[in-house]
C-alpha cells in the first residue's frame, strides 16, 4: 500500500507540474514581428511605430502607381490643367488625366488615397491610443503622440478634400465628408459631415502643436511645430479662413529661407534643402524601382513611362507675362523639350515644355527625396489669404514679392508687383501654379476655390486628355467612395454619380 501511495504521489506531482508550468507557454509571441502590446511598452518601441508611418509615406502598396504620398500628389495634379501628358506612355495615370479613374469605384486610383490615408490614420491611432501607457520620458511621448496626431489630422484633411464635398465658409457645412476614425476596431463608421471632419482635424492639430512645441527634429522626415503650423495654414486656407491662414503661414515658415536659383533648379530631390519644411528621404540601399515619384515625374530616370511620356507644363501658364523670361521657375521647363544639359539618351521622347523640375538620382536609379511642404508655399498662402481677406493687399504684395524676388535670376529684371484687388489675387494664383507645379496642389486648389477645370488653348492633347472642361461644383469634383468600402461598410453612402 505504501508503494501505491508513493506512485500515486508521483503521478499527482507530474500532473500538477503539467498544468502549472504551462500557462505562460500559452502566451507565445513572435520574435521576428512585434505584437501591438509590445510595440507600446516603451517610448523607444513606440518611436519605431512612428517611423513605420514615415515609411508609409514612400512605400509601394498594391502596384507601382501606389507609392506613399507621392502617387497621390501625381493624381492630384493629373486632374488639373497645369500638368500636361505628352503621350499615353505605358498607361500609368492616363485615366486619372481623363477624369475617369477617380469616378470609377473599382479603380485602384480611386481607392488608393482612401486606402493609404486610412492606413496612416490606423497606424496613428494605434500610437495615439496606446502611447500614454508606455514607459519612457514624457518628452518622448509628446514627440511621438504629437506627430501621430499630425498624421491623423493630415490624413483626414486629405481625405475630406478628395472624397468629401467642398468646404463652404459661412455655411453649416453639413454636407457629407468622410468617416472620422479615432480608434482601431472592426466596425465601419458612417460618413461625418465636412464640418465635423474639419473640427476633428483642427482639434488634432492644436493638440499636436502643444505636444511638439519644443521638439527639435533629427531631420525633415520627422515633423515639428512648423509642419503643424503649415498644415494648419492649409486647413484654414481651404476653409477660407483667411486671417488664420495668413497667421499660421507666417508661423510655419519662420526660420526657413528660400532656395537659391541653383537649389531651385537642382532637381527637387534633397530634403536637406533650406526651404523644405517636410519631406521623405530615401537612402541608397532602399531602391524604389518603378514606383518612385521620380519614376513618373522626373526627366532623367529611364523608365518606359518617362522615356515615352515625359510630363510637361501648360504652355499658357509658362508663357504668362506675369513671369520674366529669367524666372528660375521657368528654367525648370524646356519649351523645346531638348533638355540639352541633361544629355538625355536618344530613347527619351522629346516634347515641348517638358519639365526637369524633378531629377532622379540617376537614369537607372529612381530614388529622390519627395517634398511635402516648403516655405514658398507658406509665402503663397500668406499672400493669397491676405489678398482675399480684403484690406491687406500690402501684406499680400510683400509676401508675393519676397518670393518673386528670390526666384528672379537676373536681379535687374525684377520689378516689384504693385497689383491690388483681383489683379493681385490673379498674380498670386499664377505664381502659386508655377511655383508648386507637380507638387500635388492643383486639384484641391481648384476645388477649394470652386473653380472650373479649363484645359483649353494650351498644349493638352485632346485625345489624351479627353476632358477639357469641368464646370465648378460638378459632381465629378468628389472622388467616389471605393467599392470595397461600400461593400464592407453598411453605413457608407456613395457620392452622387
Amino acid at each position, binding site marked *: 500500500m505504501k508503494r501505491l501511495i508513493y506512485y500515486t504521489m508521483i503521478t499527482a506531482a507530474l500532473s500538477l507540474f503539467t498544468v502549472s508550468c504551462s500557462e505562460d507557454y500559452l502566451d507565445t509571441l513572435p520574435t521576428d514581428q512585434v505584437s501591438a502590446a509590445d510595440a507600446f511598452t516603451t517610448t523607444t518601441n513606440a518611436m519605431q511605430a512612428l517611423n513605420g508611418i514615415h515609411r508609409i509615406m514612400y512605400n509601394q502598396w498594391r502596384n507601382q502607381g501606389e507609392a506613399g504620398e507621392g502617387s497621390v500628389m501625381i493624381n492630384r495634379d493629373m486632374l488639373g490643367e497645369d500638368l500636361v501628358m505628352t503621350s499615353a506612355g505605358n498607361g500609368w495615370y492616363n485615366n486619372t488625366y481623363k477624369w475617369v479613374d477617380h469616378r470609377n469605384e473599382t479603380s485602384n486610383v480611386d481607392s488608393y488615397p482612401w486606402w493609404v490615408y*486610412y492606413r496612416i490614420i490606423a497606424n496613428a491611432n494605434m500610437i495615439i491610443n496606446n502611447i500614454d501607457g508606455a514607459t519612457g520620458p514624457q518628452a518622448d511621448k509628446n514627440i511621438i503622440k504629437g506627430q501621430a496626431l499630425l498624421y491623423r489630422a493630415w490624413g483626414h484633411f486629405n481625405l475630406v478634400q478628395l472624397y468629401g464635398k467642398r468646404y463652404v465658409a459661412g455655411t453649416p457645412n453639413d454636407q457629407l465628408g468622410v468617416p472620422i476614425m479615432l480608434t482601431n476596431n472592426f466596425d465601419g463608421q458612417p460618413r461625418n459631415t465636412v464640418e465635423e471632419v474639419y473640427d476633428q482635424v483642427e482639434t488634432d492639430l492644436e493638440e499636436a502643436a502643444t505636444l511638439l512645441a519644443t521638439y527639435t527634429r533629427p531631420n525633415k522626415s520627422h515633423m515639428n511645430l512648423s509642419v503643424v503650423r503649415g498644415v494648419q495654414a492649409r486647413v484654414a486656407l481651404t476653409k477660407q479662413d483667411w486671417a488664420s491662414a495668413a497667421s499660421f503661414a507666417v508661423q510655419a515658415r519662420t526660420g526657413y529661407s528660400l532656395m537659391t536659383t541653383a537649389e531651385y533648379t537642382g532637381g527637387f530631390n534633397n530634403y536637406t534643402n533650406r526651404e523644405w519644411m517636410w519631406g521623405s528621404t530615401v537612402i541608397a540601399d532602399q531602391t524604389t524601382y518603378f514606383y518612385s515619384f521620380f519614376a513618373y515625374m522626373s526627366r532623367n530616370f529611364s523608365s518606359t513611362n518617362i522615356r515615352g511620356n515625359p510630363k510637361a507644363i501648360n504652355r499658357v501658364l509658362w508663357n504668362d507675362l506675369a513671369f520674366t523670361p529669367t524666372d528660375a521657375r521657368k528654367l525648370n521647363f524646356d519649351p523645346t523639350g531638348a533638355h540639352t544639359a541633361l544629355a538625355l539618351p536618344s530613347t527619351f521622347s522629346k516634347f515641348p515644355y517638358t519639365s526637369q523640375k524633378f531629377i532622379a538620382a540617376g537614369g537607372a536609379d529612381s530614388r529622390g527625396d519627395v517634398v511635402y511642404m516648403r516655405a514658398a508655399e507658406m509665402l503663397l498662402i500668406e499672400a493669397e489669404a491676405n489678398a482675399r481677406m480684403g484690406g491687406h493687399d500690402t501684406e499680400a504684395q510683400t509676401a508675393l514679392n519676397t518670393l518673386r524676388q528670390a526666384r528672379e535670376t537676373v536681379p535687374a529684371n525684377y520689378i516689384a508687383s504693385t497689383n491690388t484687388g483681383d489683379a493681385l489675387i490673379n498674380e498670386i494664383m499664377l505664381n502659386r501654379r508655377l511655383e508648386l507645379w507637380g507638387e500635388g496642389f492643383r486639384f484641391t486648389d481648384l476645388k477649394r476655390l470652386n473653380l472650373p477645370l479649363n484645359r483649353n488653348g494650351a498644349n493638352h492633347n485632346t485625345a489624351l486628355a479627353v476632358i477639357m472642361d469641368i464646370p465648378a461644383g460638378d459632381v465629378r469634383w468628389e472622388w467616389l467612395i471605393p467599392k470595397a468600402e461600400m461593400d464592407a461598410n453598411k453605413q457608407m453612402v456613395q457620392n452622387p454619380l
Partner: protein
Amino acid sequence: MLFSLLILTAALAIGQTVLVTGTVTSSDDGLELPGVFVTVKGTTLGAITGPDGKYSLQVPAGSRTLMFSFMGYVTQEIAIEGRNTVDVVLKQDMFNVEEVVVVAYGTQQKRDVAGAISSVKGSDIAMMPVQSFDQALQGKASGVTITMPNGVLNNPPVIRVRGYNSISGSSSPLIVVDGVPIFTGDVSGTNAPSNALADVNPSDIESMEILKDASATAIYGSRAANGVIIITTKKGTVGKAKVTYDGYFGYTQPYRLFDVMNAEQYIEHKNLARANNPASGLAFEFFIPTDAEGDPIDTKWSDYIYQTGFQHNHALTISGASAATSYFLSLGYTGQEGMIQNNSFVRQNVRLNIDHKLNKYIALGANFSYVNSLGKAPNTGSLAGSAFSTAGAGRLAFVLPPNLGPYLNDGSYNINGSAIGNMGQPVANYGYYNPVPIFDLNEFSTETDRVLATLSLTITPIKGLALKTVYGIDNLSVEDNVFQTGLTGDSYASNGYVYNRFARPTRWTWTNTANYTATIAEKITFSLLAGSEQQYTNNVSWTGSKTNYNDSFFNDYQGAFVTAGMGGGGRSENYFQSIFGRLNFDLSKKYYFEVSVRRDAFSGLAVDNKWGNFGGASVMWNLSKEGFMSGVNEFVSDMRIKASYGRVGNMSGIGSYASLFLYSSGVYGAVPMWQFTQAGNPDLKWEASDKYDIGLSFGLLNDRIQADINWYYNDVNDLILNIPQAPSQGIPGNVVPGNVGSMFNTGFEFSFTTYNISKPNFTWTSNFNFSTLKNEVTELAPGVTELLGYTSGLELTNRTVVGLPIGNIWAVQTNGVDPTTGRRIFVNKDGDEVLYSHENSNKWTYRDDGSVAPVISLATDGKAAGSPLPKFYGGIDNSLTYKSFDFNLGLTYALGFYVYNGSKAGLRDQRWWNNSVEVYETAWKAAGDITDIPKPVFNDNVSNGSAMPITENVEKGNYLKVRTISAGYSFNKIPGNSGIEKIRLYAQVFNAFVFTNYTGSDPEVSSNGDTNLSPGIDRNSAPQARTYTFGINLSF
C-alpha cells in the same frame, strides 16, 4: 476519483479460493499451446500456460467463468461449473475476429469499437515501391481517398478522410506515430518534394488505423476534424531472436505518355495553320533542319526527360522478446531513381523499439528512429505552383517542337539566351527552355535528418490501473540546395543562381495518462482514461541566395558569386495544451457506450478563446448476443448497430499568432521602423465539425463474411475565412480572418471482407470497399460570393460557391466544332452559340447569323463545369495462396467526378507548340468534317482552351486502376543448417493499368497538390509511374 477506484479493486481481490488446473490445446493440430492467458472473468486474476500447455490458477470461490485468450486464436469463455480441471481446445482465429486495433491512447478489440475505424496492416504495404506509407493506402480503407498527384518521387499524396473539412486550412488528417503527432506535408522548398511522412519507413509499420468518426477521433479534440491516422511501429514478440531481411529491386517507367506529332507531321500541320492565318507573323514556313550527320532532325523530347529508373530497397530487422524485455531493431535503405531523369530518392534509417518491465509495477519503453533522406529532382512543373513554369519537364516533354534538337551540329547546346534556340525556324524566340542543358547543369536537392523518438514509463500500481507518461520528440532538419546555371534557363538573366535554405522544425509532446479497466460482476466492463498533453512546436529557418557567378566552376552557395541577395527566413513557435478523458463501458458485451472529452488550448488564439471543448459519444448494440437472434446465429454470427455524435475541431487554419495585432520590422531611412501589418482577430476560434455516424457491422457464416456499413454526416462549421473589412478601418490587407464559413460532407461507406476459401493449402480472401461522398459549401464570408481557385496562380480553374461542392471546376461551355466553318462553338451566358475566328478582326461572331458577338470571357460566360470530388470511390483487394504460391491483386477506383484536362489545351494549342497526333489526324480541314478539333489557325490560343478553360477540356475522370499485382513463392522447409526459416520470392507491378475514358495521362492527378480550392486539375504534370519489382523475404 482515482482513489475510490483503487479501493474498489482492492476489495474485489480479497476472499476464499479454489485451485483450478487444466491443459490448453490447439484445434488445428491438437498440440499443447504455451503462453495462453487464462483469467477469471470479472477479476484481474490470471495465469499463463507453460510449455506443456498446462496452467494452474487459484480461483475465488463463487467465480463462474474462465477466459482463455491467445493471439491468433478465438478467445473462449468456459463455465467452471465446480470443476477443478478445465481443459480447453482453442480454435484458430481464421477470420481475424479477435483482431486488436489501436485507438487513441490505447488498444481495443476490433469488435468492441463503436467508432468508425479502418485498420490496415503494415504487411499489406511494406513491399510496395513507394516512399511513404500514405501513398500505399489508396483503396485500402473506406471513406479515405488518397490521390498521388503524379509520378514525381516523394510527392506527398492528397489524403482526404470523409471529404473536405476545411477551406482555408488543411483538410489533411492528423498523423500520430507511436502516440506522438508528427510533422506532415511537403517540407521541401525545392523542386524535389519531401514528404514528411516518408521518414517513417513503411517496413517498420505494424499497423495503421484510420479514425474517421467523432467517436473515434474526439479525444484528439481540436485536431480531429480531418480524421486521424495512427501509425504503430513494430515490436519484438516472445520467442527467440528473429531476423528478417526484405529486399527488392525494380524498374520504374512513365506510362500513358502523350502521343505527339513527329517532325514531318509537325511542319505539315503548323504550315497549314500558318496558311490559315495571314497575320501569323511567320515570315516563312517551318522546315526540318538536318543534324550533324545530315539526317533530318526528329526529336522525341520525352526521351530526354523520362527514363527507366532503377530502384532497390533493403530492410533488415532483428527482433525478439524475453519475459521482461522486447526489442525490435531495424535498418533500412531505399534507393530509387524516378521515371524522370535526375529524380531520385535515397533514404537510410535505423529504428530501435525497446520495452522493458523493470518489475511488477514499472515498465519502460523507448522508440528511437533516425532517418536521413535525400531527394533530387529537376523542375518537373508538376508540383503545386509550377504548372506553367517554362522549365517544367512535364510540359517540355510535349510542348517543344520535334524539328528542334537539343544540340547544335557543332555539339553545343541549342540555346538562345534563357530559351531553346530556333535553328533558323520562323519563330524568333520560343521562350521555353531546352531541357537538356538545364537537366545537365541545374541541381535541386532537399536533404532531411530526422529523429523521431519516444520514451515512456508505465506504472501499474494495481492490476487494471496503468499510469503512463510518454515524452516524444520530432526533430527535423531540412536543407534545400538550388543551383541554376547562368548559361540558359531560369537564371540566364541573373547569370547563375544559388539558393540555400535550412529549416529546423522541432516539436516535443508530453502525454500523461491514467487508465483504469475493470469488470464488475462479470457483466460490466469499463475502462476509464484521463490524461493531459502538452505540445511545443518551434519553427526556425533561414535562407540565402546569390546570383551572378564570376566563376561558373562553382555550383553551390559557398562558391564565388558576385551578388548576394538579402538573407531571409522565419521563426515562430506555438504551444498546445490539453486535458482529456474517456469512458468505455459495456454490459455483457451487448450494450456498449463510450464518451470522450477533450479540452484544448492553443497559444495562437486570444486570451479569452484559448480553450475549446470538444467531445464525442457513441453507443453500440450487439444484436447477436440477444436471445431473439439465437435462431439465426448459424447464419448471422455477429451483428452490431452503432451510432455516434461528436464535435471536433480543426486548428490547421490558425496561425501561430492569428489573434494578435502585429507590427513587422523594417527600416526607415537608416533607422529601424515597425509597421502595423496584421490586425488579429481576438474572437478567432477553432474550425469545428459536428460529426454524425450510424453504422451496422455484421459477420455472416461464422464470420466468413464480415461487413461494416456506415452512414455519416459531417457538418463543418466555424470555417475560418477572410472577412472583407471597410478600408476606412485601415486594417492591413483590409481583411480579418473570422469563423464564418460552413459546409457539409455526407456519404455511405461499405466495407466487406470475405474469406472465400480457407483450406490449409488454398486460401482466397477478398476485401471490397465502396464509399460515397457528397460535399456542399453552405456559407462563405459575408459579402463574399465566391472563392477563386487558381492553378499555379495563373489560370482561374475553380470556383467555390455556396450550394455546390468545394472547388468546382469553372469553364466556358463549348459545343464542339461547327462542321461548316471549322470554328469552335462557344456558348455565351445567354445560351447563344458564338464562333471564334482567331485570324479575323471580328473574332467573335454569332453562329446563326454571323453578326459580331461580344467577346467571350470566363468572368462573364463561365459556368460550373463539374465537381472534381469523386462521388464514389474505393478499392478491391484479392489475395490467394495455393500451396507455396501467393497472389495479390489490388484495385482502386473512383467514379462520378470531373478533371480539368488543362494539358489537352496545351496539346491542341495552335501557337508553335507541338500537338498531339490526334490534332494532326482529326483537325477540321473541310466543310462537313465532324471533329472536336477546330480549323488550325496559327497563334490561336483560344479555340482549344489555353486562354480560358472550356468544357471541351473538362472530362469525366471515372477510373479503375490495377494498383498492384503480385505473385510470390515461398520455400518453407529449408533443408540444412542455414538457419533460414522461410524464403519468399515475389514479383510485383505497381500502377499496372488504368481503365478510363479520360484522355489525359491519368485521372488520378493533382497539379495543385494538397489544395482545397483548386483540386482536380491536370495541367502539364508528369504522368504517374509504373514500377516493376522483384523481391525476396527471408526470415531466420
